[in-house]
Each structure stands twice: as structure tokens, then as C-alpha cells.
């Protein structure tokens, strides 16, 4: 067989495989699975509640470290501003987190980003994000570059079709899942009181063998998504503040260069960082079921620290002063 013929068969097979994957992705678009439907319902509930909150408001955009760790109600009361906790899950990545938060942010609002450390190193989608995007995230998918879209096309598993068929065949499953998601959203967006684990479990086991790496992937998908969100917000006169994510006390807190890189990254975007990494670190007794989930007492401590930090933060005070006038000028 000639080399030309070999190459022809090779290319045709490769194209066939790509086509099959594309068909699989196309077939699955809009097909809900239990996990995907829960995430979509949860985000939808947050958008409904967040949109109902009047401008100017401070919207906390991050993963579950903020969801479980910042009490938006107390924060709002202590600072005399409206605060909504739009914390989702770190596994959804900073791209979807910021994209969905854009749906509730209005000119004159402010976004506070206590994004997880993994967001700065984020590159490719996890299963839960793929599930959510194929369930309800076509608008998010459309917003991505072709290379990021390719991630999603190649990432969807064919067996997800079975998960979806099974989920849809169960009577009332969708209604129950949506109700469950709605129950999990507190009035100000944060984790409702009943959702905290009753008992503290072993939380620091993973850190000893696999230390948390504080790493910023400069040209990575996570950094790009954050930069794109900041540009979007600034173009709409939405203030952006950033702060550090909640974690258990990290041994490398004093020396790691990663913290400085994150600070430099935000400085380049024109975003002020509120506080220091240590301000978001809590001892083990104040943590719940993960090393980045404070328990109820931890949430109170972290919220109070944030109150003090924001009171002393020039960018926040400027936004609070300017918020109303910005809104009136836009309207």
C-alpha cells in the first residue's frame, strides 16, 4: 500500500472519530442528568433570588469556600449594603461561575471574588461542569473559544446518554431535584444553616500527602476567564474586588510565592485585593467537612474578619459611596 493511501485511511478514520464525537456531543446537548439538573436548578434559583436584590449590591462570586464561609446577611447588615452570596462549586471552574454571575450583576453593583486557589490553576472542565453545560449551559458553551468548545466536545462521555435516559424515566425526578436545589439556596444565597454537617469530620487528611499548590497558570483558562470577567465588569461600571479563599491554616502561608503572583495578577487587571491570605485561613476546629469549608462558627469568624477588612478597604468604600450616584447616572 502506498503512503498516500495509508494517509487517506488514517485521515478518514480520524475524521470519522471526530465526527462521531461531535454527533455524541450534539445529541447530548440539552439532555439532563441528575447531577447536571441539580446544578442547573441551583444556579437558576440563585439567579432568580440574586436578580431580585436591588442595586447597588455586592455579589460574592466563587466556589463553595465562599458559599459555606461567608454569611451574606450578616455582612450586609454590618456594612449597610445589599450582599448576595453567588458561591457555587469550585469544580464548575471560574469560567461558569463568573459567566452566571453576570446575569445578576447590574451597573453600580460590585463583585467580590474570593475564588479558590484552584481557579488560578484551572485548565480543563471536570465532570460536574460538563454535566451542567450539557444540561443547560448552551449559552455558556457559545461564549467559549473554539479550543475551549473542543474540550467540551471531547469531554462528554457516551454513557452520559444512559444516565440521562434513566433520570428522565423516573417519575417526578426532575421536580424533586429542582425542589432540592431550591432548598439548598439560603435567602441571601449562602449555605442555609441546616446544610452544615452536624459533626466535624477528618478534614486535613488530604493536605499532608498532597499539599495545596498555590499556582497561577498565566495563560490558562482560569486566568483568562477571570480577566475576561473583570474587563466585562469594568466596561459596565461594575466594581470588582478580590480577596483570598477560605482554607484551613496552610503551612506554606508565610513563604509561598504563589500568593504574590495572584496579587500581581489582580494588580495587572486593576483589581484591588482585600486583606492577606492569612485573613482567610482558619484553624481546624473552625472547619467543617472540607479543608476549605468553614463550619458555622468558622463562617461567623470569617464574616466578621471580612467586615473589618472591607470597612478599611479604599476600593470598597469608594464603591459604596459612588454606588447610588452611578446607578442614578446609568438610569
Amino acid at each position, binding site marked *: 500500500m502506498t*503512503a498516500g493511501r495509508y*494517509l487517506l485511511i488514517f485521515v478518514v*478514520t480520524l475524521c470519522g*472519530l471526530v465526527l462521531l464525537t461531535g454527533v455524541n456531543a450534539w445529541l447530548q446537548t440539552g439532555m439532563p442528568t441528575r447531577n447536571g439538573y441539580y446544578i442547573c436548578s441551583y444556579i437558576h434559583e440563585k439567579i432568580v433570588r440574586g436578580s431580585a436584590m436591588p442595586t447597588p449590591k455586592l455579589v460574592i462570586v466563587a466556589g463553595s469556600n465562599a458559599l459555606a464561609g461567608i454569611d451574606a446577611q450578616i455582612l450586609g447588615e454590618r456594612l449597610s449594603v445589599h450582599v448576595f452570596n453567588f458561591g457555587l462549586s469550585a469544580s464548575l471552574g471560574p469560567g461558569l461561575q463568573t459567566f452566571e454571575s453576570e446575569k445578576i450583576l447590574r451597573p453600580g453593583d460590585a463583585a467580590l471574588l474570593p475564588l479558590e486557589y484552584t481557579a488560578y490553576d484551572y*485548565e*480543563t472542565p471536570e465532570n460536574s461542569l460538563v454535566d451542567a453545560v450539557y444540561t443547560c449551559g448552551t449559552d455558556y458553551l457559545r461564549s467559549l473559544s473554539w*479550543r475551549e468548545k473542543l474540550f467540551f466536545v471531547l469531554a462528554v462521555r457516551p454513557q452520559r446518554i444512559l444516565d440521562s435516559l434513566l433520570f428522565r424515566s423516573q417519575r417526578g425526578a426532575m421536580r424533586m431535584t429542582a425542589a432540592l436545589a431550591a432548598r439548598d439556596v439560603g435567602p441571601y444565597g449562602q449555605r442555609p444553616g441546616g446544610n452544615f454537617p452536624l459533626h466535624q469530620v477528618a478534614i486535613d487528611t488530604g493536605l499532608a500527602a498532597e499539599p495545596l499548590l498555590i499556582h497561577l497558570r498565566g495563560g490558562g483558562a482560569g486566568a483568562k476567564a477571570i480577566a475576561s470577567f473583570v474587563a466585562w465588569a469594568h466596561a459596565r461600571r461594575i466594581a470588582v474586588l478580590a480577596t483570598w479563599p477560605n482554607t484551613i491554616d496552610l*503551612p506554606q502561608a508565610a513563604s509561598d510565592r504563589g500568593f504574590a503572583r495572584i496579587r500581581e495578577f489582580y494588580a495587572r487587571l486593576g483589581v484591588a485585593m482585600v486583606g492577606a491570605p492569612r485573613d482567610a485561613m482558619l484553624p481546624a476546629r473552625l472547619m467543617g467537612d472540607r479543608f476549605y469549608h468553614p463550619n458555622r462558627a468558622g463562617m461567623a469568624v470569617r464574616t466578621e474578619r471580612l467586615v473589618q477588612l472591607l470597612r478599611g478597604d479604599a476600593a470598597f468604600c469608594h464603591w459604596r459611596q459612588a454606588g447610588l450616584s452611578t446607578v442614578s447616572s446609568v438610569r
Partner: protein
Amino acid sequence: MLFNSDIFLFEFLPAVLAGFFLAKRIAGARAAQIWLTLASLAFYAAGGVRFLLPLSASIFANYFVGRTLTRLHASGRKTAPLLATGIALNIGLLAWYKYTNFLLGNLQAAGFPTTALHIALPIGISFYTFTQIAFLVDAARGGAEEYDFVRYVLFVTFFPHLIAGPIVHHREMMPQFAPRRLEQGSFDLLPAGIMLFAIGLAKKVLLADSFAAMASPIFDSAATAPPDLLGAWGATLSYTFQIYFDFSGYSDMALGLALMFGIRLPVNFLSPYKSTSIIEFWRSWHMTLSRFLRDYLYIPLGGNRKGRLRRHVNLLIVMAIGGLWHGAGWTFVLWGLLHGTYLVINHAWIRLAGASAAMPVWAARLLTFLCVAFAWVLFRSDSLEAARAIYAGLFGLNGITLSPELLAVLGHHQPFTVLGLQLVPGYFQDTLPWQVGALCLLGLIIVWGLPNSMEICGFAPAPAWSKFAFHTRPAYAVANAVLLFACISVVNSGAVSEFIYYRF
């Protein structure tokens, strides 16, 4: 730019291939040669435009020194002073970028008031410096006669080998870049090139990265959390396979890429873990570096011509320098010295015991493999403390972790206490130990039981029992496409990881 990144696979490579064949067809081989040179420089610049400056300076200086050396040799005049200057310039450049902070750190440790400098290491500097040192020596010996500048730039910067080798020779590359040779080239080598590239990519993304996930957490935290017996062995064996699949995968990809353009690079790996001695190991691991060290360091030092003692000293010097070439750290020097010691013992064994003391092949292979794995601990560890912690773990000095339930069952009948191993109650992390064991078993089956990629693709004689020899048959084309597609899917479902040798 990484060979396993999307931008390389979907944008750079197709564009360069298409441009190369189009340029050759429309404007001739010279245009294709220039296109390939520009593409290689663009490939290098993608890793940092500022690094083009030391690369360009090195190319210009070596080109002119090499030309002059050739003229001096042809006219029968002395070449040694200029050759020494040229080598010193190359070593100086490498030393400045790679070893300045190592030196300052050691001075600081010795009590001198020094501070580290902010020096970024240009990618591939170790490789292109060694390539050009070899060129200068060949030129001084009258072995480098072709001096077309564009071709010389392409010889140094040809992107498949620029970042992490193989370390190539002027005499084996320059003729291949000649317009007439490029003109003759066709699509004939493309199938084997694509197959080799796909095999290399599979080694990297399917195997090396899986082993890295097992090894890295333990090595990264060894200094602060010393691993127990199983953890240390799991990490050591995982790294032993990781570095093999990573570097041989890279080399396969480099050879495959070059073949796509009709260029043959020298073979760099030939089943090193099948070796039955350390001498054999170094003849099949990173072969082009071994060749460089032998031809340009070991033999000029006297090799084995000046007595046994001198040979052993030469071996230790060469291996220590080889270790230091890999990285500016004492762990690398010790790794090199350890291998030097292995070689000395190996030579002494051959001399003292002769053929009568030959081991069974399986025992020799296992012993060689374990010695190599043992040395990789130094190579991988971030510090001497980390290496010490892993070695302590390998010998059971950090105890052995058993679940409290199992400890309760064992009661007083604990076999490990007889061996002096401290039993530590606790649980393994998710991946230990059965997953590591299963993956290492798979690694062993592949490196010991299967023909290597060179044999599969016809660049080395295949063993008689092998049924994997590559042919341009439809089944191979389909298998090649499936393998490449599987790799691309994996590349897209995880973060792109760097090749280990990119750091050197």
C-alpha cells in the same frame, strides 16, 4: 510550546507541515528549508521571545568559530586555542544561565554574603549548547564541512530536537537539510512518522502522566511528610516508569515529527530497562547524551587507555558532569556519581569474575532495574533531605502504615516487628497501594515484555517473536488514527503537563 499541547497539535504542526510541503512544491526546497527554519524559531519563541537572544548569540558565535576552525584545519594550522575559546564561550553561556545561582547558593551556605540573581533559564540551552560544542570539536578535527548559514541555523534549531534532544551531530544532520535531499523527500516517511509520534504521545499522556500522579505527591512532600515503606517504594517505582515513558515518549515524538519532514534523527532509546547491566543501560538510555559524553569527554580524558584506576576516575568524572548537566543541584551530581560508581563496579565485576560469574538474564535485568530505580530517587528529589526521607522509607526506617483494624487483627503476631519495621496505624491515601502496584505491573509488562517503538517502526531490528512490526497497511492506519484520537481526547480532558527533560 509542548508537543502534547492543543496549540501544537491543532495549529502549529498542521500549519508547518502544510507550509513545508506547499513551499517545496511551489517555490522549491530552499523555500521549504527557510520555512522550516522560521517555523523552528517561532516554536522556540513561543516559550519566551527573550530567550531568542542567547540562542541567536550562540548560533552566530558558533557558526563563525566553526567555520574558522574548519579553515585552520584545512590549512594545517593549530586549532586548539580557538577550539578552547569556543568551548569556553559555550560553557560560559550555559554556566551563567544554569549554574550561577547554584554557585551563589553554595557560597551563601559556606558563609559568604551572596544573594540569588533573577536569571531565567532559556529553554533547551543544555541541548543546543552540547550540540554546538560537538560541532566545534568536529570542525577542529575536519569533520564539519558544510557551511550554509540557513542550514546551520536549521541544524541547531530544528524544532523536533531543539528543546530536549536528541543531541545531534553536524555530520548526520547537515546533509539531510541540503536542498537536493529535501527535494527528493516525499510523503513516504509520513506514515511511520505519524505512528511514532502517536506512540510517543501515548507514552506521555496515557502512561507517564498516570505514573506522575502516583509519584509526585510523595516526592513533593517527602521532606515534611516522610513516606512509609510502601509509599516510598510506590513513589520510587512510579517515578522510574514516569521518567522512562516521559523521556522516551518525548524522543519518539521528536523522531516521528522529524520523519514527517523526511528527516531522520538519531535513535535515543532502545529498551533501557531490558538491560542486564549498567554498562548496557547507558548504551540504551538517552543514547545521544551517552555518545556525547563518551566522544567529547571520556575519550579526551584518556578513556580506558591509561590504566584501570584512571578509567574508573574518568568514569566518575564523566558521570558527575553528566549529572550536573541535568540540573544545577547536588542531588543531580550525586545521581551522576552513583551511576559512575555503578559503572566502576560493573567494570570491576567483569574483570574480576569474568564470564564464569554471569547471572541468569532475569536476575541481571532485575538487579539493573532496581539499581537504576534506586538512583532515580536522587534525580527526582527536590533536596537532599527529601531524598534521605525517601531512602529511609525504602529501607523501612519510616515504618509501615497498616490500618488500625488490621493491626488489631494481627495483635501480637506481627511479622513486621520481627523485621524491625515500626508499625504505624493509619490509612493509605486513595491511590495506595493496589493502584500503584497494578500500574507498576503494567509498566513492567510494557518495558520488559513488548518490543520498543524503534523496533515497531522499523528503526531497530525487531525481536524474532515480535508481531508488531509497522507496515503501511489499512489496519495500521486505522490503529494509528484510533491511538492518536485517544491521546488527543486525554490531552483535552486534563491539564497539559510538561516533559521532565524540558527543564534541562
